[in-house]
């Protein structure tokens, strides 16, 4: 298809329609509102429906209703709205309902501001609701990926029967880049388990309740097995000049693009820097990080927060290599110049060590 210049937030909606999504429920919030606006425009013209819900609490429960009925459904919001949705996300996960939730992140805590920040990492990736569950989280860093990962999100949601988040910072939502969309609309069939008001599916029940301890434990272990499978099969990342890097920068979203620029410049100066960009934040590319730890001497995590993803980087490394952090927040973006300075300092501090084989436990 002919590439078109389009905003990240709008690309999400077109990709969703092409993925066969036919239900949108949402409450406006900057910097995610264009998603609701585009959905209001396109869903009603393409055989779907759109409701501006009374709150994010209602939105997420509408999502629950539509997903129960077996249609592809989505919502979008930003920090404060995602906080409100967390109860519903727990129910969706518990009831094993597939759906897509887009989070265009902004500054917090509280009302914070509407400028981009990456401070929803904990509440989305590490989950913000009650119970033993996880959600899959995809982190686009371009407008093309806003489209592609939205499509993937619907497929993963169906495959793993779970809510899938597309989490992008305000910049990725607001910026425009050329996007090539799929040429065809996905055909979606009603799943066997759906409660769709037909004779053949009348006996179906969608529920998160399991009264007996043994039943609930069995259910939780079943959920856990799904997550373990995702950890084996669904991990995605981009490694850029990382294989022989002394310093591996780890960043996602808009920050990964700044870091890529920095890596190019450092390489131009003969300095061995690389970038690891997690595309799935859960499951996190732990094994890849451990593999890079065999050759790298230090990792540098760059985020638009005071350090949230860094916890996963540290957990992945299990103490193998030091991790340094550079972050800006409140709506400030780490500039190329700042990250360059940070990277140079880190490289200077850490003398590359030749790692002998027995030190490495992949």
């Amino acid at each position, binding site marked *: 298809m002919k590439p*078109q210049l389009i905003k990240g937030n709008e690309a999400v909606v077109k990709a969703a329609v092409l993925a066969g999504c*036919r239900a949108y429920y949402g409450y406006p919030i900057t910097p995610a509102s264009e998603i609701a606006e585009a959905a209001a425009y396109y869903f009603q013209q393409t055989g779907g429906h759109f409701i501006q819900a009374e709150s994010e609490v209602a939105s997420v429960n509408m999502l629950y209703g539509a997903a129960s009925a077996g249609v592809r459904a989505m919502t979008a919001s930003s920090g404060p709205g995602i906080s409100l949705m967390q109860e519903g996300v727990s129910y969706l996960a518990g009831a094993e309902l597939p759906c897509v939730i887009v989070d265009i992140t902004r500054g917090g805590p509280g009302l914070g501001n509407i400028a981009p920040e990456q401070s929803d990492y904990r509440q989305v990736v590490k989950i913000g609701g009650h119970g033993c569950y996880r959600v899959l989280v995809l982190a686009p860093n371009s407008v093309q990926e806003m489209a592609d990962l939205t499509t993937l999100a619907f497929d993963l949601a169906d495959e793993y029967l779970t809510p899938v988040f597309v989490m992008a910072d305000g910049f990725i939502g607001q910026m425009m880049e050329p996007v090539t969309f799929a040429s065809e609309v996905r055909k979606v069939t009603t799943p066997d388990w759906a409660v769709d008001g037909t004779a053949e599916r009348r006996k179906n029940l969608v529920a998160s309740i399991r009264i007996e301890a043994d039943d609930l434990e069995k259910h939780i272990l079943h959920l856990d097995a799904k997550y373990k499978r995702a950890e084996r099969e669904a991990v995605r990342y981009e490694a850029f000049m990382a294989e022989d890097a002394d310093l591996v920068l780890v960043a996602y979203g808009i920050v990964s693009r700044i870091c890529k620029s920095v890596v190019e410049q450092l390489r131009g100066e003969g300095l061995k820097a690389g970038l690891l960009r997690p595309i799935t934040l859960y499951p996190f590319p732990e094994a890849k990080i451990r593999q890079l730890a065999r050759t790298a001497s230090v990792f540098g995590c760059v985020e638009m927060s005071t350090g949230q993803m860094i916890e996963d980087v540290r957990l992945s490394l299990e103490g193998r290599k030091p991790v340094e952090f550079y972050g800006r927040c409140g709506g400030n973006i780490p500039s190329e110049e700042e990250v360059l300075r940070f990277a140079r300092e880190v490289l200077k501090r850490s003398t590359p060590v030749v790692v002998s084989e027995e030190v490495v436990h992949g």
Partner: protein
Amino acid sequence: MAEYKILHDKSNCFYETYERKGELRNQTHYCPGCGHGNAHKLIAQAIEQLGIQDRTITVSPVGCGVFAYYYLDTGNIQAAHGRAAAVATAAKRSRPDSIVISYQGDGDLAAIGTAEILHAANRGENITVFFVNNGIYGMTGGQLAPTTPVGAKSTTSPFGRDAHNDGYPIKVCELLSALEAPVYLERVALGTTKQIMAASRAVKKALENQVKGLGFSLVEILSPCPTIWKLSPVAAQERVRDEMAAIFPIGVYRDRTREAQPYPAPKPAPPAEQIPAILGIESAEGVIEAAKPDRPVDWRIRVAGFGGQGVLMLGEVLAEAGLEAGLEVSWLPSYGPEMRSGTSNCHVRVGTHPIASPLVTKPNVLLALNEPSLKKFLPTVEPGGWVLYNGESIPEGIQVRGDVNMQAIPFTQLADELGEAKAGNIVSLGALLELTGMLRQEAVDHALAHLVKSTRWLEIDRQALKAGRRAAHAREAERAEVCQ
């Protein structure tokens, strides 16, 4: 032994045995004399009579009725506390042929779920709500409900409900009858056999309305909870009849079933092959790829000015024209607090190389449409870059940089002379093209035609482009003369 004739058989809409329940599969989990049991019966009967069992979806949120799915042989969705109306809304919208029941208690509907029920009713969702009002939180062991009578004791109103502390019992039918959309609101009771028969009619009617597609119907059912009330089943029924009905008058609060028109059916989906076109996605067939420039280019542009000067639009035209010319492009607006203060700026990149960061912190082109922008961004411009300022001359107090190409041209004034001061942004674009040769004219023409929908504005913008080119050309000529 006396012979009995069974007048009312167990409805087919109940499961024969309650397999989902686990133990004691022949009896319900409800306490003896509980109103939920009766309410279930009335609903099952009505479903059977209307012949809608296969189409029915029952939504049961948290409360003693959460286990409705043990009993009702319909599609079942168990929902979060208070959210049944939202869940039901979406199930119905997703499956317009289904019959969706939202079965809610008083804590559920009138406390935690107040927003959801109010808005579902206000949208006139074509669902049927059965609202079991027992004036107490049954499931959690007898706490104050929004419907508990003033003076009544509960575990969280140990001295009796005090209106100054807890407010008054909420009257849901009265409240919802203030809304325009609902078609049918009735309050019934399970206090006497006669009341139960009337309740049966209301339940059936509320479902029938949905079958006819008339819109939102709600039946409030005053219902005994002998266990928490610490009364015998008979005494509990008497309390419903005497005390509850006195606080919550029985009756019809809204009935527009006769005059209501069925909701129009949802618009049918267009054929799948038409959807890309509806989304504005064009086929790449026949598109001739633009010839790439013969040398690498990397334009890092910052456009800045007041809101209303068309800063973002100017950036978009540049990016769109770049795309048209076969280049890599990105456009990033400043948004957020800056927008409110009345200034606006955007980052545009146009180049031959794939774009890593779309942020432009060291521009090689600055289009400053006002003085504050010039002040703010001039120091960031890369040596050798271009700076175009909207004015007769560089304002006093701003150090002219010798290491960049600076031009002051009154874009807004030139646009004003064309009759539209707002086209100043496109005048500046004309000047930029003339001075830098950044993009071919055809690419810019294409971009403008794509982005500007009004023919009048398109013509103005074309004139503006020319005016910008002329002015820049004149400036260059002047400069050449001075240099000689």
